[in-house]
């Protein structure tokens, strides 16, 4: 079985090695999409063949939106995964993944504000208010800011573990808003955003189940 395989292999890598080699590796991997995007814009800027297609602005808006949502869901999956393999080691990566989600939403906004709207602030503000799916995305972004700011060990101490954890539960709401943003943005009834919605739902169900088990244990 996969789980037993993981239980046996994963803890055999020491936390020290994971910090020393695992983290830089995962960091580099998560940077790849951004590197790809930057490289292709560089090519496009020089009128070279590139992978951005016929509407490069649309491509980068969507590409960065997709990766924001992916890293957001991945960060939510860390805790369930760590429970599944009965090892705390995946938790070493949780903050990094969360910060990458924040990094990609920043690129997402940059792509939209700069490449797409060309800093036309009047048009932009009208757009954010008028188009409900952008308002939803913007709300998700605003909620993500305090989480990125308080992601350091210093802030965990300052807030206290309990309060810090409660604050960071916001990420579930952000995930839900992100998926709603995606569903609303696509025209008609499309399957792809629903796949993300399904994954998010699975993560939420897992979370709620764990919570119920905990309360049962306490009350029982």
């Amino acid at each position, binding site marked *: 079985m996969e789980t037993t395989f993981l239980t046996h292999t994963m803890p055999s890598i020491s936390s020290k090695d994971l910090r020393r080699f695992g983290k830089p590796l995962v960091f580099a991997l998560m940077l790849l999409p951004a590197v*790809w995007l930057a490289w292709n814009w560089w090519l496009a800027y020089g009128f070279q*063949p*590139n*992978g951005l*297609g*016929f*509407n490069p*602005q*649309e491509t980068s808006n969507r590409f960065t939106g997709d990766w924001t949502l992916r890293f957001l869901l991945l960060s939510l999956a860390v805790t369930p995964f760590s429970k599944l393999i009965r090892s705390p080691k995946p938790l070493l990566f949780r903050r990094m993944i969360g910060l990458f989600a924040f990094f990609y939403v920043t690129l997402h906004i940059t792509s939209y504000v700069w490449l797409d709207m*060309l800093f036309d602030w009047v*048009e932009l503000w*009208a*757009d954010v208010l*008028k*188009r*409900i*799916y952008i308002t939803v995305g913007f709300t998700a972004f605003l909620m993500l800011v305090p989480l990125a700011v308080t992601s350091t060990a210093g802030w965990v101490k300052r807030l206290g573990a309990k309060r810090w954890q409660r604050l960071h539960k916001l990420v579930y709401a952000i995930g839900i808003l992100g998926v709603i943003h995606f569903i609303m*943005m*696509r*025209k*008609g*009834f*499309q*399957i*792809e955003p629903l796949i993300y919605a399904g994954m998010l739902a699975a993560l939420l169900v897992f979370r709620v189940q764990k919570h119920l088990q905990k309360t049962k244990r306490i009350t029982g």
Partner: protein
Amino acid sequence: MLIERSERWQQSENSVTSETIYLNRRRLLAGAAVVGAAALAPSVFAQRDRVLKPLAARPTSFDPGESPTSEAAITQYNNYYEFGTGKGDPAENAWRLKPAPWSVKVDGLVDKPGTYALEDLVDFNALEDRIYRLRCVEAWSMIVPWVGISLASVLKKLEPQSGAKYVAFETLADRKQMPGLRWPVLDWPYTEGLRLDEAMNDLAFLAVGLYGKELPSQNGAPLRLVVPWKYGFKSIKSIVRISLTDTQPATSWNISAPREYGFYSNVNPQVDHPRWSQRRERRIGEFGRRETAMFNGYGDLVGDMYAGMDLGKNY
């Protein structure tokens, strides 16, 4: 995915050639309808083995005077949800469509109903070149050199009865040919409609070709509507049915999201779509955005039809 994209890009080299030939030819042979015999490089694109035959057509004055969008962009950046919702999906999947033999069912309030072979409906000896602007509701635009015939000339042949007030169109819906139909993105088959006076307007066009050749499948082969003063989705593709009715026909996007897509859907920079501001558009191939013109710049030809109508309500 990356590899596939760059391949598509490279294909554009061929297309640039045939495009140049096409454009020069158009200038050289203005007035003479002899494109047919010319040895135009057959463009293959995603058609697998479908070779697009050149079509002979006579030039017209319908030309916005702006250079046409590249053939590569027009044939590889498409919205045709029957073949998938990604912009590149139609070019990839539309080879499954069988554009010949093709027939169109004509019914409703006409004196000449029946099932017509494409060749009986469209007179291939009377084709015209028309270069039109295309404005998508997603706020991008193109300049497209179509080949086809005026919609009015076809409708007259069918002899609409005096009670007919609208024309309804329907796209093919065959799962074997159209993999996108597996998902209920829209209520298939795709349907569209026009008021009869809109359909009879000079500008309303039925296209059977593009860039001097038959329509590629992803562009709505073998027969599609082109109504350039309306958002692109009104220009229904791969038409299998034309009905004349006395009531306003149901249209797919209106059924899907009535608040966003009205029956008229005229290009109108003053009436925003809840999803896209319609004041500006990106011309495919350009970096910035341009101002969008009322009726997509065709106000002098179509504006009269909407005199006195509240276009904010009738969006």
